[in-house]
């Protein structure tokens, strides 16, 4: 019973953390981008205001499948928040005793498919083009994070979440070649996971008019935007959980602050790379992912062989 209460308490804490802090991180991203572009930029709280503005607008539905549109909007945020419950943020993962890494991989993939559903439900030519791009990208990108988790599980010889996280990417005794390799792969792919330049092919504004999200406005768009901000938070958290050794001071608050600081650094790097790059085309992007995929498989092989 005590375990259940603790799990419930930390789950709520994680959710609140994601919901509160993700728009703040987005605001910092926009501010840093603005500094690079020699302008003042919006205030840091702008993302909160944007979400609020969208939520109070009229909920208009267009097209043949309004139910699917509603569902995909809700699914996108819900899936990411579910992932947040499985990642340690300052403490151990809230649902570590109730879930394992396979569920984590499933939920990550589910979050990715919500954009596909959104594009299909809208049905306009540009959203279908965007959806087919997203599908191509997903098929080559999602396996990378799955391989990273499985590799960590191989090292830890367990699928339990608290075994996989906490730096299990590096086995204890000798030089962790597989760990370093997979760290490199995921580092190079982080930009793509959070959907930022040069890999924001699916939301290419100038080419396909926002792609899958073209037909969404008002509260549904707020949910998609929130999901995107939460994605940045959750993926950086996942990266830290997998590859950064956990520093535990015993106090929840200091652990949390350290965690947030690590995230902020990661986010800064992502933002700087995004601000200084042009968007790649879908075929160039897929080629890039395939190379990373092959390297990831190599890392997995090394892990299985014990290195």
């Amino acid at each position, binding site marked *: 019973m005590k375990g259940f209460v603790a799990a419930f308490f930390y789950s709520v804490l994680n959710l609140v953390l994601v919901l509160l802090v993700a728009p703040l991180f987005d605001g910092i991203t926009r501010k840093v981008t603005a*500094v*690079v*572009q*020699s*302008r*003042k930029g919006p205030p840091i709280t702008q993302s909160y205001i944007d979400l609020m503005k969208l939520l109070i607008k009229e909920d208009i539905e267009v097209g043949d499948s309004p139910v699917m549109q509603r569902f995909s909007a809700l699914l996108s945020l819900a899936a990411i928040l579910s992932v947040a419950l499985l990642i340690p943020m300052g403490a151990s993962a809230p649902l570590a005793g109730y879930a394992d890494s396979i569920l984590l991989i499933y939920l990550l993939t589910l979050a990715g498919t919500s954009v596909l559903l959104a594009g299909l439900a809208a049905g306009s030519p540009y959203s279908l083009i965007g959806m087919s791009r997203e599908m191509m990208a997903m098929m080559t990108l999602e396996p990378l994070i799955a391989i990273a988790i499985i590799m960590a599980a191989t090292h830890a010889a367990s699928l339990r979440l608290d075994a996989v996280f906490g730096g299990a990417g590096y086995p204890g005794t000798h030089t962790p070649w597989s760990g370093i390799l997979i760290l490199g792969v995921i580092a190079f792919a982080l930009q793509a996971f959070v959907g930022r330049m040069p890999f924001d092919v699916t939301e290419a504004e100038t080419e396909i008019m926002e792609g899958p999200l073209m037909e969404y406005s008002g509260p549904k768009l707020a949910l998609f935007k929130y999901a995107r901000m939460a994605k940045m938070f959750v993926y950086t958290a996942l990266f830290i959980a997998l590859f950064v050794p956990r520093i535990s001071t015993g106090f929840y608050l200091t652990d949390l602050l350290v965690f947030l600081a690590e995230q902020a650094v990661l986010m800064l790097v992502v933002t*700087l790379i995004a601000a*200084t*790059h042009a968007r790649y085309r879908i075929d160039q992007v897929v080629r890039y992912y395939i190379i990373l995929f092959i390297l990831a498989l190599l890392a997995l092989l090394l892990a299985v062989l014990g290195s």
Partner: protein
Amino acid sequence: MYLLSKIRETILCLKAGRVTLPYPVNPRPVPERFRGRPLFHPDKCIGCAGCANNCPAREILIADQCQEMRVVMYLGRRCTYCGRCADLCPEKAITMSHEYENATPKIADIRQDLEIWMGTCQRCGRCFKNAGPLDQLMMKGYRFDDLSAELWVYRSRAYLDKEPVVKDIDIELG
């Protein structure tokens, strides 16, 4: 080399600093020659209609109410702020001000009406001082633009006409 150009670009951006201006919180002054809203000074106007003849947008209307009274109406709706009226005015009665924040929900705010007391020329009833062969529509005499409908009418006569004007592009010389 690839990384080098990206680093060069970033340094370029950061060296420039922030260039956002605090307008509209702080006012933004304009240079001396700036062509803002034209201001018509009724005290200096002699009613020669040079401005109306040369406004490319045809936004200055002239109508003679009687022998002594000429109305000059600047509508300002399609005004392009080109400043030709100010160039041509022989009395410098039109100045291009520095006002550029001219948005208003009431069109009447932009309109300027001048009522000019005219002297009478014995020969033709009115006189127009030419600025050059290219600066005239060759309309001498009394003018009858349609003020209530805010329309230009290309018609002038040597005498005052009480009939309502119906046709357009019908220039009568003298």
